[in-house]
């Protein structure tokens, strides 16, 4: 696949979890809408960043894409083929090219297996090569991710968090995949180790032309690695754009609030910037607000927001947002600037 072609396209991907009751015969009592109508595409060799707070459906989306979960509806086109309904052999052959790196390097490695078995597992599953070539490949992968061959026979508990994440990356790379879904690959690590892992992922991308779907809640890391960023809120993409557009001129009040909350490594700038603090909690995905999902916490909400759900709008493929009353200016001079007259929701003032 040459660079620039679409490798993954999601079309109205939806994942609802039924909440059931009953011992043997279960009946559905509610529906948890974890991912609702998400569409996007990733071009080969690029990185798409996905941000959002805990519980917004990022991980569910990732698990649907690698088919650890079965989507409720919608299409997942991988290299032009809809894989959302595949199973058995057909799914297995897709899995060689589409892998995932997990968030928690402690629990994503089987504590009873040696490093050689963990990294060699995909090779064994697909019966790739002889045991000697598999062994050689594991050695090569260890060096590729910055570990060395004497780690071959160790157990996961003998490694630090960063080293374990490297083992997870080596396992993902074993069969030379095309797309890697990174589900918060660095959020369980120290800041200094985060940088090493990010560098490793970038080096690997440059070397092997990998495509990443990079999920995180750290806006700065996502900006650093991504060509395009999507912001999710309660199962929907509320704003998307190239990193420059989105970070320098957010249009959705939610993106603006997220951006204003990120730590600034400069005391002078940190003092002067405006800090938008949203009120209330994220509504339950079991009982979503009518209209715009963000309206219960939005300082710009108007009556229409509770009636009509906004669709993504704006320059298609460049910068789109799903809001009836998008922001026009950024940065804001004061937190009150985000407010629109008539909105019932306020903004908490935070002193410097």
């Amino acid at each position, binding site marked *: 696949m040459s660079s620039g072609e679409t490798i993954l396209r999601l079309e109205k991907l939806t994942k609802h979890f039924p909440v059931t009751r009953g011992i043997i015969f279960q009946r559905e009592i509610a529906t948890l809408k974890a991912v609702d109508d998400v569409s996007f595409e990733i071009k080969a060799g690029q990185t798409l960043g996905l941000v959002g707070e805990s519980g917004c459906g990022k991980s569910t989306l990732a698990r649907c894409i690698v088919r650890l979960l079965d989507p409720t509806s919608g299409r997942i086109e991988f290299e032009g083929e809809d894989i959302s309904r595949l199973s058995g052999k057909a799914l297995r052959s897709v899995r060689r090219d589409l892998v995932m790196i997990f968030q928690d390097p402690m629990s*994503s490695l*089987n504590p009873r297996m040696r490093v050689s078995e963990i990294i060699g597992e995909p090779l064994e599953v697909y019966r790739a090569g002889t045991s000697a070539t598999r062994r050689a490949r594991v050695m090569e992968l260890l060096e590729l991710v910055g570990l060395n061959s004497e780690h071959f026979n160790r*157990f996961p508990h*003998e490694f630090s968090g960063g080293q374990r994440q490297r083992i997870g990356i080596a396992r993902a790379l074993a069969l030379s995949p095309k797309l890697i879904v990174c589900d918060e690959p660095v959020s369980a690590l120290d800041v200094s180790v985060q940088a090493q892992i990010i560098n490793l992922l970038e080096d690997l991308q440059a070397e092997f032309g990998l495509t990443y779907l990079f999920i995180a809640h750290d806006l700065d890391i996502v900006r650093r690695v991504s060509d395009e960023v999507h912001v999710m809120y309660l199962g929907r993409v509320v704003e998307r754009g190239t990193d420059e557009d989105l970070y320098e001129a957010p249009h959705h009040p939610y993106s603006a609030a997220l951006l204003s909350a990120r730590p600034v490594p400069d005391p002078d700038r940190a003092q002067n910037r405006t800090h938008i603090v949203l009120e209330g909690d994220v509504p339950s995905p079991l009982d979503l607000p009518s209209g715009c999902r963000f309206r219960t916490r939005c300082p710009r909400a108007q009556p229409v927001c509770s009636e009509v759900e906004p669709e993504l709008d704006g320059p298609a493929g460049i910068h789109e947002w799903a809001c009836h009353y998008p922001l026009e200016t950024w940065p804001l001079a004061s937190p009150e600037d985000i407010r629109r007259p008539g909105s019932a929701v306020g903004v908490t003032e935070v002193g410097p």
Partner: protein
Amino acid sequence: MSMPPAMSPIPVDVLAPREVGGHSAPTRGPWALMWRRLRRDKAALASVAFIILLFSFAAAAPLFESWTNHPQNTSNVAGSDDVTLLPVGPLGGCDGVTDVGKDTCFILGASNVSGHDMLVQLSYGARTSLFIGVVSTAITVAVALVMGLLAGYSGGFTDGVISRLMDVVAAFPFLLFAIAVSTVFRSNVWTVIFVIAAFSWFYPARLFRAEVLSLREREFVSAARMLGASTPRILRKHIFPHLVGATVVYASLSIAGAILFEAALSYLGFGLPADIPSWGRMISQAVPGGLYRNAPYLMIFPGTLLVLTALAFNMLGDGLRDALDPKGNVDR
């Protein structure tokens, strides 16, 4: 597999054994760690020693038989005192005139009910107890593993059906059923084993199911699925190895339970037929007419052996549980 061209060819020296520099502590597998801990547990080691002795005692049964010249299933008239009609006590008949070990000498005494030599009976009884304990435990654990894995990993309807089945078995009056089976069928070693296994699998199965339920949600299982591993492979490589510890511990405890249960059934007269030696029946033979008041050894020898055997398997089980505990201290 064809390697992508982008990957560098593998340097040859990677395959050669390389000099490992600096500190490189030998890597220990879970079993090596377990053995290190078990070695420091004196009670568990004593249990292991006792269990080895017991197996040797059981294995040596034919030797005792030929040495004493008291075949296991023939009555020895010499076993009772001619005047009192009481059984001879320990060392009875061993007066030093007769050759020791020949015909009239009963080292651990004899039973006047069956006329059997106690020593020979005890060692054949050990065979029965160990056989029933080990075989019924093997069946129990195998059934429990299958049920636990099936219920825990598949979840949903299958889990519901198996879990309710476990509840039903748990609610069943175990002893009454065992008595009923032994009156309907002519009981032998296998019916006793069947009854024990049929009513003990639910307990370890519940343990395994709970364990599998939590293992199934661990990310390394998702990772294996994501990599395309089949369900049998996941069960074998990722789930089962985590159950081995619990299985070993449970098996050890379960052997003790099965031995005690067989003894209880035989004591009540619903266990093994009279031609199969059993510690439980040996104890029961001392009861009628208050025989144990005149010949307490009839109860003391099999009773002590039974208690020690159950204790040894239980202490070994406890020792194994501590040794396999991942949070345990290596250098305790």
